[in-house]
């Protein structure tokens, strides 16, 4: 198991360049090969999650053993937390690849699409698996640069503008991150996350690292589109081809943004209460402002993109509450509850936001428009899209049998128990506004009077698209099972343990 970990990076990278060669000569090789590769990665990620048993799998690339207990090689580690993120990346990626089989036919240069798609997956897997700060940056650049190209894939006016904006802000973020990594390397003299944590034990230069923490937070905050840094997200996520929007919104901002913030602030920096309060404030701001920006939108994909900001706010707020409690060193069980609620919502958001973007793509595929005012009455002509988007809308608004309800419930209960009553109330209000804006989406797209009287003009989308939408809506229902204590103990508790324990991550990496 341990030595097979680099497969998560090697397989997508190799398939990128195989597609570039063989895809030129063999027709249809690219789409089926991509789907097969991602199926393998998805199965392998679930196998890895199941074989962890709450432990930590470590791979030293190139077989470079530590010298005098100082790690000199590049480490790749899989623990309870990033195993979950790896599962999300590869399963949503697999379904998006299946969806692309019919969707991407309308673009020229399909070969480049699948090559860039595999490259992006490889980059994200690398970011999530890496236990080395500089390697995180390298893989981040791989995935982000391929996402710039994918956002501009339609090569229209809007796509190019969105991609340019994304590139400017993304480069700024990369610069801030590299600057922060440089400062850490200067002081700690190592790049291994666990080893940096060890170096902090001998003394934590508070003002110096406050600056570094702010650099890292704003850099990865830009990648995660937390509210003051969100300007690129609605354009980029709405201009990309729909399977890519699903990947960007459902997976990308989590893998390269939220995951790294959570990992670094829990397992590398020494948590301080001020920083935790700042993170919670940013999360609350994104949650509230995002939903107010979303409700006025008439472009479906822009509406969904703003909701991504808002739902990510839930995750950051909930993890931030846990961080405050961990920093104060009080009421550990509530901190555990808050963080597990955040991670649960992160998993759920990947399922329902991926599904919603696929639905938006299906509507755009059939009607050729993204404007809610120009559509209506699609429920009769597109029953599968209508049913799956209903599941997704109810999940994101937190209606009981679906997964969103349970994660939001855990977040709100944790906020109340931690005596952050205002945050709990805001979470409830935001959830209600989310429900309102998704009822608007349902009504205008599916149940209103048809805009075009000739409603037989529209047909259901092709089978691969229906298949991946149906699979994601079943996942939306099944994820509710994570609320059952036994399942939660098996999946979420190892993730929370590795985050809340101050020494577990560093000792288990340096000890092996």
């Amino acid at each position, binding site marked *: 198991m341990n*030595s097979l970990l*680099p497969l998560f990076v*090697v397989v997508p*990278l*190799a398939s990128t*360049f*195989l597609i*570039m*060669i063989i895809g*030129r000569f063999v027709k249809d090789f690219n789409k089926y090969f991509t789907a097969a590769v991602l199926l393998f990665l998805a199965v392998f990620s679930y196998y890895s999650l199941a074989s962890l048993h709450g432990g930590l799998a470590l*791979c*030293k*690339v*190139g*077989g470079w053993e530590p010298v005098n207990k100082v790690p000199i090689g590049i480490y790749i580690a899989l623990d309870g937390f990033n195993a979950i993120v790896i599962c999300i990346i590869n399963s949503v990626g697999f379904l998006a690849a299946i969806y692309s089989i019919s969707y991407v036919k309308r673009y020229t240069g399909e070969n480049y699409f699948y090559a860039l798609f595999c490259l992006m997956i490889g980059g994200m897997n690398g970011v999530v698996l890496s236990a080395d700060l500089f390697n995180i940056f390298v893989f981040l650049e791989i995935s982000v640069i391929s996402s710039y190209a994918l956002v501009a894939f339609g090569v229209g006016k809007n796509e190019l503008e969105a991609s340019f904006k994304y590139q400017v802000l993304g480069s700024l973020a990369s610069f801030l991150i590299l600057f922060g990594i440089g400062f850490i390397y200067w002081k700690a003299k190592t790049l291994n996350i666990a080893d940096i944590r060890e170096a902090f034990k001998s003394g934590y230069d508070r003002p110096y690292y406050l600056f570094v923490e702010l650099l890292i937070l704003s850099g990865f905050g830009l990648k995660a589109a937390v509210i003051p840094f969100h300007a690129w997200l609605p354009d980029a996520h709405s201009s990309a081809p729909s399977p890519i929007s699903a990947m960007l919104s459902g997976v990308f901002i989590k893998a390269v943004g939220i995951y790294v913030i959570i990992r670094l602030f829990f397992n590398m920096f020494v948590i301080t209460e001020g920083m935790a309060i700042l993170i919670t404030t940013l999360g609350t701001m994104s949650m509230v402002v995002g939903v107010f920006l979303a409700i006025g939108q008439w472009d479906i994909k822009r509406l969904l993109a703003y909701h991504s900001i808002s739902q990510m706010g839930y995750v950051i707020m909930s993890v931030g509450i846990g961080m405050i409690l961990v920093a104060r060193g009080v009421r550990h069980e509530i901190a555990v509850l808050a963080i597990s609620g955040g991670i649960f919502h992160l998993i759920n958001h990947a399922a329902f936001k991926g599904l919603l973007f696929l639905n938006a793509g299906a509507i755009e595929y059939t009607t050729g428009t993204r404007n809610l005012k120009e559509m209506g009455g699609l429920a009769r002509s597109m029953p599968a899209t209508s049913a799956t988007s209903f599941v997704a809308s109810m999940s994101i608004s937190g209606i009981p049998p679906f997964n969103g309800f349970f994660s939001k419930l855990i977040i709100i209960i944790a906020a109340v128990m931690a005596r952050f009553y205002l945050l709990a109330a805001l979470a409830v209000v935001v959830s209600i506004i989310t429900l309102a804006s998704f009822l608007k989406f349902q009504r205008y797209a599916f149940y209103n009077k048809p805009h075009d009287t000739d409603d037989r003009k529209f047909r259901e989308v092709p089978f691969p698209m229906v298949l991946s939408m149906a699979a994601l809506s079943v996942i939306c229902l099944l994820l509710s099972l994570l609320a059952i204590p036994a399942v939660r103990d098996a999946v979420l508790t190892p993730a929370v343990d590795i985050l809340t324990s101050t020494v577990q991550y560093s000792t288990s990496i340096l000890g092996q």
Partner: protein
Amino acid sequence: MKGMSIIVKKTAQLISGMIFIYGIYVIVHGHLTPGGGFAGGVILAGSLILVTLAYGEEFFKLVREEMGTTIVESLATISVILIAVGGFLFGSKIFFNNFLPRGTVGELVSAGVLPLYNIFVGTEVASSIFIIFLSLIIFKEESPK
């Protein structure tokens, strides 16, 4: 794209070969001296770009050349990955393991797989920089005057 004057052509003819050989020298001595795959690859691409600029090229030939270079680039990258996987297959089950005999320090054929990595990285860098150059020329030729 039109070529340049006879003076430029002759000068390019004289020095491009030397630049190319120097690039190969930097690549194969990567494990012994400063330089290596990336630096040598850039030098190789420099000589290719020099010849293309001096002599000029027909548009369709440029497009074909770009396609060929893309394939070379992808093959080079796949070779790097294959060597990494080779470390897994013929050794102690570790990716990027140095599975070839190390030889004597300081000799040209030594250091196990490192010279191979350098050669393929050099090919990859040379072809990708040449592709960037070709794409810019093709874009300029395509755009209306």
